[in-house]
């Protein structure tokens, strides 16, 4: 390795610095290029598109309002398409009343419809209950009983991961 005193290294630095400066100064003066803003509208358009699509997904699918409760032991669930989804919550449309309702597929349903719903898809091996945190256990217990009678025993309670303290 090349031995060099601290003084020497400073010299090398100042030398390379002057070299760079010379190179920069030797360039002919040019006007500064402006950043093209032509793509900005596109970007904003895509953002708008994004928010529109996301909002529509939520509104079309859910007839009930579901805010899942927090749970620190939440685990990621397996494949989405192999799971039955049951939604329980207050109807988002005020005309449908304020008491909690069950949603299966795209329509409101009664407790007794749960068994038929689960039996219609025997290849789906588990059920996810998306229940709003404000709902009382009565209706959830009824659905659980129906699931037990339909022998659909693997159940997930949808929840949100708790923010770490």
């Amino acid at each position, binding site marked *: 390795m090349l031995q060099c005193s601290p003084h020497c290294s400073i010299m090398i630095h100042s030398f390379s610095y002057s070299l760079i400066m010379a190179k920069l100064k030797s360039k002919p003066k040019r006007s500064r290029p402006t950043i093209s803003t032509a*793509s900005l509208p*596109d970007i904003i358009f895509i953002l708008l598109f994004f928010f529109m699509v996301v909002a529509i997904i939520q509104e079309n699918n859910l007839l009930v309002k579901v805010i899942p409760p*927090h749970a620190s032991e939440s685990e990621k669930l397996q494949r989405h398409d192999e*799971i039955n989804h049951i939604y329980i919550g207050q109807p988002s449309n005020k005309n449908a009343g304020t008491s909690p309702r069950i949603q299966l597929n795209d329509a409101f349903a009664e407790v007794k419809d749960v068994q038929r719903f689960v039996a219609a898809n025997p290849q789906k091996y588990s059920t996810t209950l998306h*229940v*709003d945190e404000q709902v009382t256990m009565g209706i959830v217990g009824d659905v659980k009983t129906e699931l*037990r009678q339909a022998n659909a025993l693997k159940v997930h309670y*949808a929840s949100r991961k708790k923010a770490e303290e």
Partner: protein
Amino acid sequence: MKRFDNQVNAGSMADIAFLLLIFFLVTTTIDVDKGITVKLPPWTDEPIAEDVIKRNVLSVKVNRNDELLVRGEVVPISRLKERTIEFILNPDQRTDMPRSPRVAVISLQNDRETSYETYIAVYNELKAAYNNIRQEEALKRYGKAYENLNKEAKKAIRKDIPLVISEAEPTDFALK
């Protein structure tokens, strides 16, 4: 004649593609579900025989005001986890707690008016207690975290510390 050299500037294409990528990323994460997995007991018409020994059962009752009763004692939900761990491990070898974690059973009962939020919170604490104990057992036996164990080791731990939560029929004080 003046000629326009019109070329589409492809410089922004990368940005647009990047945004599209973010879009798909975000939309797919919305679909990913998180939850607590439980296995419901099979349906039987006959009432379940109460042949479990009393010392092996930790009864947790939640009333319609979302208050907890653990073995006849009012316990705040924040202390449920430590109570459960103490019950399962029984460090002081007490005679009113199970001899080994293998035989421990948790009996959970709620009211029809209990809020779902509280129910999940209770369930979560019970599950957290078991996860905690399994984690410690994994470190003690294999020196590794439970998630990093292979299937057989996980199975062995699950067999020795089984999570048994039996749910009684919910009470219904609203009608009475």
